[in-house]
């Protein structure tokens, strides 16, 4: 009986954590949306709750003809979160540690799947926070660019 009580309590606690984490992630995305300008946001909540040392891979299909912007947003408690981009042959084509920025614009030579790997640094403290990848795109001006409001 005691075990059942403990399990129910644990699940209740976890569900509260889940809801809180999800709401925090949406808030983080909305707060950072302006960083995509003048690109159009893809309308998706690409986020994860990570602990110290945590890693998440986002699989992302990009199309030739559009220019993309990736913007990394992270809960400050996580410290210096970084991201790198791998092409479909797993070659690293970008690493945010190289230029110390949290956003990157690029085109693709041909349409393909990229992997964006976000890493939280290891620390001695036990921490958890939200990381989000904001994806924006824009068309060439010749066919009418899309501007955010």
């Amino acid at each position, binding site marked *: 009986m005691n075990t059942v009580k403990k399990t129910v309590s644990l699940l209740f606690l976890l569900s509260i954590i889940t809801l809180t984490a999800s709401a925090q992630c949406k808030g983080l995305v909305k707060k950072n949306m302006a960083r995509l300008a003048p690109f159009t946001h893809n309308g998706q909540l690409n986020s994860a709750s990570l602990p110290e040392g945590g890693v998440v891979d*986002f699989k992302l299909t990009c199309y030739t003809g*559009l220019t993309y912007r990736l913007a990394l947003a992270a809960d400050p408690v996580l410290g210096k979160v970084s991201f790198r981009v791998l092409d479909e042959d797993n070659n690293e084509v970008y690493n945010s540690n190289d230029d110390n920025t949290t956003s990157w614009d690029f085109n693709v030579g041909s349409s393909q799947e990229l992997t964006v790997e976000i890493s939280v640094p290891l620390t001695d403290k036990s921490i958890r926070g939200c990381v989000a990848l904001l994806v924006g795109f824009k068309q060439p001006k010749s066919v009418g660019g899309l501007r955010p409001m």
Partner: protein
Amino acid sequence: MKNHVGLLAQPEKTMVNKSIVILIIAVILTSCGSDTNKNEAAAIDTTSSSANSKELMKAQQILYTLPSPVEAAALMKLSGATFDLSTLNPTANVSKYTSNESKSLNLGVYGTDLVYANIFEQTQESADYFKCANTLATALGINNAFGENTFQRVKANMQNRDSLMAIIAEASLEADAYFKENERPAASALVAVGGWIEGLYIATTIANKTKNGEIIQRVAEQKNSINNLIGLVESFGSEKGLSPVLGDLKEIKLLFDALEVKKGTTSKPVGNDRTPTIGVSKHIEMTPEQLKAISEKVGSIRNKIIK
């Protein structure tokens, strides 16, 4: 050190102690997920039985991001497509959808139709399709996404295509977030599937009518997306409504798998420093017969969704 050794799903690992199981549940439950998303594989170090809880939290998640309807419509316009109302789901169909699964799938369908109407500057149709999205979103309990406030903003910006597109993207984010906050991520996946199928249906229909090589190539490029879409749906296991959808997607995948990919060299980033061009150089070949087979399969699945 980020360790990724065995997969959690392996049956031989069922004897791990309770604390490890609890930690794994915590990792899975507290992941926000992306549109897309949830853990496909949470790989952890199981080689060291003395690993403390901090080590075990170093799980790697894989999340899937799909091309948004806004992106797909922009690509179609870029490729020279023109607007054809007859390819979209008739607005009168909106009252047919009674189950949560059909409402979610068709919220995706109407969302894509709304974006197409807007990007091709069809003001009245944009308003009509917004109302359909609003009807289904409200029925699913999402009041913030396509609700009255958003509708007023849409009306005020009806002549401003760019602003309208930004409002639609914002509404999509709200809908996506709503499903995740309310522990209905499978509904989010169904919306994504409905939107993707509708986008592919529109593209194949236009490709068949126009024989435009660039549009045909855009259809072929969906070979890149189908794996992500299946990965997304599979990540939710046997949740209600997903099994038939998964079967349909796998049938489409078989046809895309047959397309030949001609790969060039892997590129280092090139171009100016501000906007480099990256990635592997490749071209996906699709014969007229393959286009026909994909079009028929997608058309039949799409008709099943909207009926």
